[in-house]
C-alpha cells in the first residue's frame, strides 16, 4: 500500500468518524439550537473525505470536484445554520433581535 493510499484512507476514516459523531450529536441533543451545531461539524467531515479523494486521484476531474464539494459544505454550512437560527428565532419570538432565550432584552 503506497503512502498516498495510506493518507487517503486515514482522511477517509477521519471524515467518516466526524460525520458519525455529528449524527450522534444530532440524536443526543434535545434542543434545536444545540442540534444545529452539528451541521457544521458534518461539513468538516465531508471536506476531509473530499481531500481524501483528492489525495487518491490527484487534481483530476473527480479530485477537483470532490474538493469543490468539500469546500461548498464548509463555506455554505455556516450560512445555512445562521439563516436557520435566525428563522427559528423569528418563529419563537417574532423578531430575531427582540429577546434572548432567557427572556432578557439584548
Amino acid at each position, binding site marked *: 500500500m503506497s503512502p498516498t493510499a495510506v493518507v487517503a484512507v486515514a482522511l477517509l*476514516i477521519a471524515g467518516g468518524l466526524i*460525520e*458519525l459523531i455529528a449524527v450522534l450529536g444530532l440524536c443526543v441533543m434535545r434542543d434545536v439550537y444545540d442540534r444545529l451545531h*452539528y451541521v457544521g461539524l458534518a461539513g468538516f*467531515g465531508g471536506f476531509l473525505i473530499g481531500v481524501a479523494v483528492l489525495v487518491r486521484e490527484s487534481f*483530476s476531474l473527480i479530485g477537483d470536484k470532490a474538493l469543490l464539494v468539500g469546500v461548498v459544505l464548509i463555506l455554505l454550512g455556516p450560512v*445555512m445554520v445562521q439563516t*436557520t437560527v435566525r*428563522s427559528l428565532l*423569528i418563529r419563537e419570538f417574532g423578531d430575531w433581535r427582540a429577546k434572548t432565550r432567557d427572556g432578557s432584552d439584548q
Partner: protein
Amino acid sequence: MRSTCSASEPGDLGAAVNEWEIAAAVLGFALIPCGAVALLADPPHGLAAMQVGSVLLATILVLLSEGLHRQPFIDLAVVFALMSLVGSLLFARLMERDL
C-alpha cells in the same frame, strides 16, 4: 454470456467492495437516525436533521463516485450540495411563520 465487469467474476471477491463503498454504506446507515428525527420530531428539529442528512448524502455521492470508478457521477454530488443549501434556506424561510 460473459460479464464485462471484472469485479463480479467468481474468485475476485477481494476487489468486490473497496474502502470507499464501505464508507458510503456506513454513512448510508447513518442517514437512518437523521430520517427518524426528521420524521418524528417537531419541524425545527426536522430541519436540523435534514441539513445534517443532506451533508451526509452529498458525501455519500462523492464516495460512491470514487468507489464505483464513475467519475462523471460526482457532478451529482456537486449539484446536490448546492441545491440542498437552496432547499434548506427555503425551508428555513417558510419556517419563520408558515410551518
